[in-house]
């Protein structure tokens, strides 16, 4: 975490996002939020609570229940000089907008050879472990990160949530800003009161270690840190990297770490097949294979269509700290 000398405040993720967006809207008239229930309701997770009173109906827009509309109208606003923050109520519900996001927002700069741009932020709560079942638990980062023209970020600490949201607002291109629902209230941390940005494309080594590199992001990153702590008791030092930015991906930090530890594990909650870990593993295999002393290991969600509802099944789906601890130990002992 970059040093900051000013005062800080402890916040959870929702507070950090709420406060940052609120301050940015005060700072810059062009910033507008739009989405389902962002107005009087303040968002179903309360991220825009109080915004309507402060900024009025012109800048806090309750849209109809039509995600293509949210993205498409957002694009129009961005083209005309606004900075829209479009909320997808759940990442799962961004798919009716898939065409607008991937074929329009992502390509307007390229297809107009720079004539038009889409400085838009699309916020979406994602991820499971919240009794959300098949349609309120999904991880969507791999789908969007595959699409050139988009940036995809997943802050996992309140500090990053603030810095990356400001970065997203300043970014001249569309940014998919994903918020893990389970971290909203679970994860707390000190957040500087001053304004700062966290650049995209820079992973963060949150726990240095020599025995094993573990790459993750979002909720899983916290599970990984916990598992790593457990192993530290046995003298196994796990280096835990928080990717933060899925695209651009900080391959350098990962490769450099793997070169030191010689072992790599990637942990993600999304379905394993063609999830983010596939790309990270492929990058390592292409650029650091001879540094490795053990096969690359991926721990990820099983190949079922998202998390079932029943507690027994939801538990079955999610990678958990116990499993991670075991798998890390196995890999370290390899």
């Amino acid at each position, binding site marked *: 975490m970059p040093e900051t000398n000013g005062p800080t405040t402890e916040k959870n993720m929702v507070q950090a996002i709420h406060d940052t967006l609120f301050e940015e809207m005060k700072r810059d008239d062009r910033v507008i939020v739009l989405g389902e229930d962002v107005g009087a309701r303040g968002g179903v997770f309360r991220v825009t609570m109080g915004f309507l009173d402060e900024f009025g109906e012109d800048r806090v827009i*309750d849209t109809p*229940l039509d995600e293509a509309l949210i993205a498409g109208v957002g694009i129009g606003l961005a083209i005309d000089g606004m900075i829209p923050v479009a909320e997808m109520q759940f990442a799962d519900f961004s798919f009716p907008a898939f065409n607008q996001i991937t074929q329009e927002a992502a390509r307007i700069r390229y297809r107009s050879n720079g004539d038009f741009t889409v400085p838009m932020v699309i916020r979406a709560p994602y991820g499971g472990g919240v*009794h959300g079942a098949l349609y309120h638990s999904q991880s969507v980062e791999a789908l969007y990160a595959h699409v050139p023209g988009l940036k995809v970020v997943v802050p996992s600490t309140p500090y990053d949530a603030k810095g990356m949201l400001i970065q997203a607002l300043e970014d001249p291109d569309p940014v998919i800003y994903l918020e893990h629902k389970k971290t909203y209230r679970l994860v707390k941390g000190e957040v500087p009161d001053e304004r700062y940005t966290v650049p995209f494309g820079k992973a963060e080594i949150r726990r240095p270690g020599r025995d094993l590199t573990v790459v993750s992001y979002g909720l899983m990153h916290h599970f990984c840190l916990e598992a790593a702590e457990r192993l530290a008791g046995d003298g196994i030092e796990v280096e835990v990297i928080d990717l933060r930015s899925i695209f651009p991906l900080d391959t350098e930090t990962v490769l450099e770490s793997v070169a030191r530890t010689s072992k790599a594990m990637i942990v993600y909650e999304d379905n394993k097949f063609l999830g983010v870990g596939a790309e990270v593993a492929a990058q390592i295999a292409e650029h650091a294979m001879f540094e490795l002393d053990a096969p690359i290991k991926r721990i990820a969600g099983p190949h079922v269509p998202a998390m079932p*509802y029943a507690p027994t099944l939801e538990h*079955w789906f999610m990678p958990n700290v116990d499993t991670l601890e075991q798998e890390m130990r196995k890999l370290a002992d390899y």
Partner: protein
Amino acid sequence: MAKGTDRHTELGLKEEDLIEMYRFMLTARYCDERQWGLNRQGKAPFVVPVSGHEAAQVGSAWAFERGKDVFCPYYRDLALALVAGFTPKDVFLGLFGKKDDPSSGGRQMPAHWGAKDRNIITGSSPIATQCLHAAGIALSKKLKRSDAVVGTWCGEGGTSEGDWHGAMNFAGIHKLPLVLVVENNQYAISVHVSKQVAGSVHGRAQGYGMPGAVGDGNDVLEAYKLTKEAVDRARAGEGASLVELLTYRHYSHTSDDDDRTYRKKEEVEEWKAKDPIPRFEAYLRSVEMIDDARIQEMRDETKTTVDEQAAQAEEADFPDPTTAYDNVYAERVEVR
């Protein structure tokens, strides 16, 4: 009122129909009360309330022929699911996410109704997708020269999605045996219909070349009447119709919501005064089908049944995690 000029007689409804309809409305209401209670006790993490919509759902569902016609409902349709064949126990198996939940075996959130043997098509959370499935099933029925009719339900918020537009358009073009019912309760979570629907829902129908009716969704007989006309039209091969039923939900959107942030107490009270259940009771009294004693009796019976079945469901098993991989595909596909 002279026999034969009763509203229900004119609609071709018999006393048994009315009593059954009333019982379904009561059952839905008690299911709702029970599930809210369980939620408050921390036993049901997620509840979708139905209260307020009972007349719209029971009335519209009653217009269809069970065993032949097809239901494509949405999550709010607890009362409709009962009419289509769900027992209260089924409802609570779904609420708890138990193995024997007929909709999904505990895989989906509560209120995602579906059961092949009851002709209720599996539904999902993304809004309005079922409208296109309903159109496809209606096309299939037409191609098979079946006289089955398909019904699909959504809220007024659902009409904003492209899928609803597509279903309306396709149903209009192909004169499908489809009835699209919209339960307009004026809010999509917190968003008022004035921010949701330009013009009006029923006013859209004409532009798709089909009739659009609108009526009091808190009057079970009116809901029945408008839907029945649409079903008859569909069955006669005259094509699709839109039916908009005006109603209101008594509680928050779901147990995760707090409607006090966006609805005035007075408005809620005003609508609770139009509660469809007392209104139907008044009608039943007026045609002398039931008296106060019978009402109390039926309420007690229904409540007892619901409570008993809820308790049975609570004791049922959760799905075994070893089954979690089942039914991704017909045959198991391993991913290394």
